[in-house]
């Protein structure tokens, strides 16, 4: 038989780990329709039956004021899962019960998994699962995602619950006033056919707890309810009862509290320190980048070598000249050039995953939150900005977990201004050609300008992007845990593969297009290609900056991938890389070069980044916006710099 079950729990309880253990690699990521919330679906089989496991977002409550919560609540209302696995944290049992009670009130077939039992045991905390199990008549399993304890029992419980297909109606012993309210509500709601699909008892409680804004109900009904009852007082009575119940259950379930400190407190002692904490954060970031470039660069070079070998082989096999050029230069070298930096993306995601899974990121966000608040961002966003200096792609993809839509969008659209590592070779060549004596200073200036540009852009965009939401920045500092290799791998792989699939489409098309523009109309003469013509056509805009068609063409090609700027220059100036510096130096003035540097820093992000933007915003509108916004800003910036440069240089 086939069953559909779902898994839900607070953030940081290990829900994802359990999901990974149960489904292994049989999982894929999609999106809930209409929102940017991630939907993970996996499958597993047990005793001959097939199970589909839906991963619901990590939430604290079903109140539906954030997208995450709404998605979960609507899932429960619209689908009827055969079982709902509620994951609780053994060291945080009381808080996990809040969500559990909400789900039980929906009369869903629940299975409670009290996870991280290994950590509890290590601290000496003993939990008795029977209390909750007997009170609500649901299976309760003590599990540990790390040691795999309890997993077989969990699977068995899921199976049993799914097969039973019983309508779980738990009789909560509400206080008298609440019962009276429920009865009245039920009789009133019965008159509304639009509400016939809902369980009226649940609807009454939900309305009481969360108010009219949280669920669509006839205005007439909600008005009459509100006039017949003192909702505020009722709600207090209800909440008091609920927290009393939770308190009692927890007290009875925890047989022994155990040690009252954890390693987390020890580590936090230093990590949140005024001075040391910040310093360590900077070193941690520095570490991530250093590791990335020392591990990934050799791999990347290897890939480049592979692609050039492949290209030569293809060249030797194909004889039709234009086809040969298309396949070698256009496709293999074009796409290969981007694929070659997959190692960087993979390693960056790996370390980012490590920081996230280990629990360190919230500490980092905590340290810098105040500073970035001036730009309308939160501490969490800072991490994404820094990642952007390695590569815009993982940075943009990392914005997914930022809860404020306004902040996320503004940040996402500003990250392209972060000077990624691909721009570095271009800076080096140009700075080397024009400012050999002050190289370090100019470089430093560029990077500082880049950071400022990102921050200012984020601030500016937030003024225009009007989707307001104001969930206060309140996050938990979870316990530290050593991420398991499996989780890390799945996390990194999922992100990298997702990008690979989606991006290869646009990059392939773009590479072919660029090849076409530079090959035609005359194969070997780049000076007269379409691309050069396009470059010339922009001269009216760039002449006053001192840029001629060589530069313009290089910039056009740089849209594919910034490193391409250098190779295009080499091609159009007809020199080999060694003589490029001198050739460049004689083609324009230092003032133009400085303006050019700033233009390169800010203008249109590479195709890989554009694809990432499309992926994360799920809209062509924002991708097009990025295109126009960046080039517009870059142009203005270049002009400003040219002007100032004229005064100084």
């Amino acid at each position, binding site marked *: 038989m086939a069953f559909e079950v779902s898994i839900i729990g607070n953030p940081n309880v290990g829900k994802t780990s359990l999901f990974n253990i149960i489904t292994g690699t049989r999982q894929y990521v999609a999106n809930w329709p209409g929102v940017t919330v991630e939907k993970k679906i996996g499958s597993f089989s047990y005793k001959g039956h097939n199970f589909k496991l839906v991963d619901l977002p990590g939430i*604290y*409550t079903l*109140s539906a*004021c954030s997208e995450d919560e709404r998605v979960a609540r609507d899932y429960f209302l619209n689908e009827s899962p055969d079982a709902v696995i509620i994951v609780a944290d053994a*060291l*945080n049992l*009381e*808080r996990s019960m*809040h*969500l559990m009670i909400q789900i039980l009130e929906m009369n869903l077939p629940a299975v409670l998994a009290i996870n991280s039992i290994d950590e509890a045991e290590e601290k000496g905390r003993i939990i008795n699962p029977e209390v909750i199990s007997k009170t609500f008549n649901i299976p309760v399993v003590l599990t540990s995602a790390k040691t795999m304890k309890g997993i077989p029992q969990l699977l068995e419980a899921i199976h049993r619950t799914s097969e039973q297909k019983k309508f779980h109606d738990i009789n909560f012993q509400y206080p008298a006033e609440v019962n009276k309210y429920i009865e009245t509500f039920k009789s009133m709601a019965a008159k509304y056919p639009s509400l016939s699909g809902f369980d009226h008892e649940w609807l009454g409680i939900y309305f009481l*707890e*969360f*108010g009219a*804004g949280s669920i669509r109900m006839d205005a007439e009904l909600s008005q009459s309810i509100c006039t017949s009852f003192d909702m505020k007082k009722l709600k207090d009575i209800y*909440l008091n009862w609920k*927290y009393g119940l939770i308190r009692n259950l927890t007290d009875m379930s925890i047989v022994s509290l155990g040690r009252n400190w*954890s390693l*987390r*407190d020890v580590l*936090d002692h230093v990590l*949140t320190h*005024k*001075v040391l*904490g*910040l310093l360590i954060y900077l070193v941690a970031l520095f570490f991530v980048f250093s590791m990335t470039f020392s591990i990934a660069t050799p791999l990347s070079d290897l890939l480049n070598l592979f692609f050039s070998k492949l290209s030569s082989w293809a060249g030797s096999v194909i004889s039709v000249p234009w086809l040969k050029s298309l396949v070698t230069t256009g496709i293999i070298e074009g796409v290969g050039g981007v694929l070659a930096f997959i190692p960087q993306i993979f390693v960056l995601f790996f370390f980012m995953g490590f920081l996230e899974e280990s629990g360190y990121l*919230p500490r980092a*966000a*905590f*340290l810098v*939150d*105040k*500073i970035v608040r001036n730009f309308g961002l939160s*501490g969490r966003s800072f991490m994404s900005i820094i990642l952007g200096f390695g590569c815009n792609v993982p940075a943009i993809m990392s914005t997914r977990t930022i809860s404020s839509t306004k902040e996320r969008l503004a940040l996402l659209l500003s990250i392209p201004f972060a000077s990624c590592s691909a721009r570095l070779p271009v800076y080096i060549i140009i700075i080397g050609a024009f400012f050999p004596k002050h190289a370090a200073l100019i470089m430093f200036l560029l990077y500082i300008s880049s950071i400022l540009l990102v921050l200012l852009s984020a601030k500016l965009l937030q003024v225009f992007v009007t989707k307001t939401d*104001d*969930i*206060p*920045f*309140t*996050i*938990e*500092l979870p316990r530290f845990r050593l991420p398991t290799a499996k989780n890390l791998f799945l996390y990194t792989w999922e992100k990298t593969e997702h990008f690979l699939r989606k991006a290869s489409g646009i990059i392939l098309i773009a590479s072919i297009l660029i090849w076409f523009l530079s090959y035609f109309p005359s194969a070997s003469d780049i000076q007269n290609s379409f691309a050069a013509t396009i470059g010339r056509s922009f001269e009216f805009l760039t002449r006053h900056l001192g840029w001629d068609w060589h530069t313009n063409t290089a910039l056009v090609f740089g849209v594919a991938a910034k490193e391409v700027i250098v190779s295009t220059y080499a091609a159009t100036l007809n020199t080999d890389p060694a003589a490029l510096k001198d050739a460049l130096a004689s083609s324009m003035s230092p003032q133009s070069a400085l303006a050019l540097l700033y233009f390169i820093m800010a203008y249109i992000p590479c195709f890989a980044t554009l694809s990432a933007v499309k992926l994360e915003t799920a809209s062509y509108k924002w991708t097009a916006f990025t295109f126009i916004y960046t080039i517009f800003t870059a142009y203005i910036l270049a002009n400003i710099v040219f002007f100032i440069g004229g005064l100084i240089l």
Partner: protein
Amino acid sequence: MLVPLSSLKIGMKGKIQSIDFEEQIKERFLAMGFVPGKDIELVHVSPFGDPMVFLIDDNKIMIRREQAGKILIDVGFLIDTLFNIPDGMCEVFTIDSGMMLYERLKSLGIYPGITGEKHLYKGRIFFRTNQKDILMGKRISRKILCKKYL
């Protein structure tokens, strides 16, 4: 005594009394563990004073000072610098300094756990323990954190 959560000093504990937000945000705080009646303690403060991290049960939750200002706590004791704390009996809680000052104060009979009486004489701060009555300079009294039961 009721004080806003944002006025707590590191190490100070209290009981959550009330949460003063609009319904939706209040619900979020409740769900995260800010339940009236629960004990809460300030454990970390960010380098710039904001945000703050509180401990409720086994949870460390970070919230901004602005929001913390709207949560009322019932405290059993005040923690403040010797400089600020109201006159009267109080207990030395911690010394915010390096090893040198700590040792010096210790030799004078002032160390965490000691109870003494703060009083002013001619505008200067004195701290009277059962051994002696010591004159505390402004700088030093700002480094000694004291606990005063209410």
